[in-house]
C-alpha cells in the first residue's frame, strides 16, 4: 500500500495534529483549504515552477563527488541545493508560501529565523513578490548573526529581536505565533521548517519534495538504478523530508536522517531530538522534543545554528517510529571532519548543517561497502560558516562574529 500521510486532520500516525490556541484553528483550516486548492490549480503551479526555474535556479544538479567517494569508500552523489538562489533549499519552501500569500491576498508576511537563513529567504521572497515582511529572531541570534540581520534589512524586511525565554529560535517561533494570533486577518506566517501545526508539516513537504523528486530521476538517469540510501541532515526537518518523500515507497532505499549530536548526545549538549528526546507537544504538534521531567523545553546545542532546535517535524517522528527512516547523531567533531574532507577533495565548502549529512554518509559508507551508491542532500553552501569553521580549525583568532547557519 503506498504511503499516504498525514490523515485528514494532520496526523502522521500518532504524531502531528494541532496543539494551538483556538483563535488560530479557523485560520489554519483556511490555510489548509487554500493550499489544497492552490496545488491543484495549474495556473498556480506553473507560476511557482517558473519562479523556481528562472529565479531560484531549480532544479539543482546532481553531482558525482568522485574524490570524496574514494576517500569515504562508497559512491557518493550530491544533490546540489547549495547552488540555489540564497544558497540553500529554503528558497523552495519560501517562494511557495509567499506565492500562496499573494494568492490569498494577505499583504504582510511574518517569519521566524534562528541563524537567519530562513529569514533571509523570506525577506528575499517578500521583496520579489512585494509583501511587507517582519522577521522574528532571538536576541542572542541577532548578536551572533549580525551580517544576516543586515542582509534581511537590506532586502527591506523588519527584523525584531526577541528578548523572551532563551532568546533563540524557539522563542522567535513563540513571538511569531503571538504576532500571528493578533494579525492573522491580513498576515501570512511563512513557517521555516516541516514542523508546527497542520497544515505546515505537509505543506512544507509539498514545497520541498522537489529535492527528492528531481534527485530520484537524476540518479536513475546517471546510474540506471535507485541509490542504496538517501541521507540528509535533520533539524526541524525540511530538507530531509524534501529528499525522503520521493523514496518512501522505494523499500530498498534506506533513508538516513542525521541529527546534530553537538558535544555528544550523552553529554546533554546536543540537538539530537529523535535520538535522545521524548514524545511531547511543542509549537503546535506532537513529535519528539528535548524536554525535562516536567515537560519544560530544554535548550539545544549544536555548532550548526540551523540544526539548533529542540523539536523536529512530526513526519520524521512517524518515519522513525515506523522504522521507515533511521535517525542517527553526528557530533560537531564528526561534522567538521566531513566538512574539511569535502572542502579538500571536491573544492566545495558545505553548510555546517549539510556537513552533518556528509558525516552520516561517511559512517554509512563503512556499513554498506564500496559497491553502495549513497545520495546526500547538500542542503546549503558554507560561505556563511567560514568564520565558524576557520575558528574550529584554528585558522584565525578572535571571537565569532559571523556564525551563520542554514536552519537545517
Amino acid at each position, binding site marked *: 500500500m503506498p504511503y499516504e500521510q498525514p490523515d485528514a*486532520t494532520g496526523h502522521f500516525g500518532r504524531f502531528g*495534529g*494541532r*496543539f*494551538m*490556541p*483556538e*483563535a*488560530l*484553528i*479557523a*485560520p489554519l*483550516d483556511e490555510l489548509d483549504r487554500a493550499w489544497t486548492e492552490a496545488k491543484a490549480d495549474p495556473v498556480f503551479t506553473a507560476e511557482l515552477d517558473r519562479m523556481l526555474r528562472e529565479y531560484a535556479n531549480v532544479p539543482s544538479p546532481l553531482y558525482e563527488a568522485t574524490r570524496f567517494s574514494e576517500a569515504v569508500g562508497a559512491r557518493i552523489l550530491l544533490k546540489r541545493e547549495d547552488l540555489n538562489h540564497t544558497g540553500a533549499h529554503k528558497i523552495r519552501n519560501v517562494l511557495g508560501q509567499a506565492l500562496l500569500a499573494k494568492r490569498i491576498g494577505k499583504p504582510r508576511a511574518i517569519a521566524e529565523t534562528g541563524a537567519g537563513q530562513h529569514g533571509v529567504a523570506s525577506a528575499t521572497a517578500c521583496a520579489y513578490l512585494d509583501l511587507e515582511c517582519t522577521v522574528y529572531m532571538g536576541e542572542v541570534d541577532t548578536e551572533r548573526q549580525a551580517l544576516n540581520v543586515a542582509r534581511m534589512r537590506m532586502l527591506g524586511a523588519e527584523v525584531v529581536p526577541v528578548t*523572551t*525565554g532563551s532568546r533563540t529560535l*524557539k*522563542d522567535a517561533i*513563540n513571538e511569531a*505565533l*503571538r504576532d500571528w*494570533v*493578533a494579525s*492573522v*486577518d491580513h498576515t501570512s506566517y511563512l513557517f521555516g521548517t516541516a514542523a508546527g501545526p497542520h497544515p505546515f508539516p505537509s505543506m512544507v513537504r509539498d514545497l520541498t519534495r522537489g529535492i527528492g523528486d528531481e534527485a530520484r530521476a537524476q540518479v536513475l538517469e546517471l546510474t540506471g538504478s535507485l541509490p542504496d540510501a538517501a541521507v540528509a541532515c535533520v533539524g526541524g526537518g525540511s530538507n530531509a523530508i524534501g529528499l525522503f518523500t520521493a523514496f518512501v515507497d522505494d523499500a530498498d532505499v534506506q533513508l538516513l536522517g542525521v541529527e546534530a549530536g553537538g558535544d555528544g548526545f550523552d553529554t546533554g549538549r546536543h540537538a539530537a531530538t529523535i535520538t535522545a528526546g*521524548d514524545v*511531547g*507537544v*511543542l*509549537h*503546535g504538534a506532537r513529535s519528539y522534543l528535548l*524536554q525535562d*521531567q*516536567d*515537560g*519544560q*523545553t530544554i535548550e539545544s546545542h549544536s555548532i550548526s545554528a540551523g540544526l539548533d532546535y529542540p523539536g523536529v517535524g512530526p513526519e520524521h517522528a512517524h518515519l522513525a517510529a515506523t522504522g521507515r527512516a533511521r535517525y542517527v547523531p553526528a557530533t560537531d567533531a564528526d561534522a567538521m571532519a566531513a566538512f574539511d574532507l569535502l572542502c579538500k577533495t571536491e573544492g566545495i565548502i558545505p553548510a555546517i548543517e549539510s556537513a552533518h549529512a556528509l558525516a552520516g554518509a561517511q559512517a554509512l559508507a563503512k556499513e554498506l561497502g564500496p559497491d553502495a551508491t549513497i545520495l546526500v542532500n547538500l542542503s546549503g553552501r558554507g560561505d556563511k560558516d567560514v568564520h565558524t569553521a576557520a575558528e574550529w580549525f584554528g585558522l584565525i583568532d578572535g571571537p565569532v562574529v559571523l556564525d551563520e547557519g542554514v536552519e537545517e
Partner: protein
Amino acid sequence: MTRMSAIDELFEKTRAENRAVLVGYLPAGFPDVKTSIAAIEAMVSAGVDLVEVGLPYSDPVMDGPVIQAAADQALSNGIRTTDVLEVARASAATGAPTVVMTYWNPVERFGVERFAAELAAAGGAGLITPDLVPDEAAEWIAASEQHGLDRVFLVAPSSTDARLALTADASSGFIYAAAVMGVTGAREQTSSLAPTLVERVRAVTSTPVGVGLGVSNGEQAHEVATFADAVIVGSALVKALHTGGIDGVATLAAELRAGVER
C-alpha cells in the same frame, strides 16, 4: 448534566445574586510558591470567586509580556509540576473552586490520567487548556470524566459556528471566550468583539461563558459583566502582585468584585 460541579454551583449562586463570577488568575510560584499562595488567599478574601492557578511553562504562546515574565521567574526559581498541584490544593482550601490553567505538554509529560487524579485529590475543579482544542483532547476528556473535573476550552472571535458548537459540546463548567484576537495582557478598552462572541456561544449552549483577555479594572469588569457570565482577569492581577505585593492584589480584586455586580 449528571451532577453539579463546584463550578456549576458557583454560577447558580451568582445568577441568583444577579452578578457575574469573578475569575482571578495567578501563576503558581510567582514570585515564589509561598507568596503565590498568600496572594491567592488574599484575592479570594477580597472577592474573587474562582481561581485559575497558572502552570508556568517555557513556551507560553498565548501569553503577553506580563505573564511570560512571571512564568520565567517561577521557572528560574525551580517551580515543579508537583508544586503547582500544591498551590492548587491551598487555593481550593480557601473554598473557591480552583482550576489549573496550563499549556498541554506539562500535563502530557506528567501523565494525563495521573495529573487528573492528583488534581482531583488536591481539591481542584478542572483545567483551562489554552493550546488544547477538543479535536486533540480525547485522553483529557476521558480522564476528566473519570475524576469529575471540568474542562474549560477556549473560543475566539475567529471560531466558526461549527467550532463553537463542537467546543461547547466538549466543555463543562464554563467556556472561556477570548475577547480579542491576541495574547493575554491589559488593554485600554474592552473588546468590541466580545459581546458578539458571547451571543454566538449562547446560541449553541446553555453552559456559562466567561470573558477574558484585556480586562484590568473595575470599570471594564462592570462592562463585561453586563453581557458575560464570568469576568476573567489575569495579567492585571499579576502586575498588581509584582508592583503592589499582596495588598496590591487585594485592592485590585476588591475593585474588580465591585465591578462584577450588575
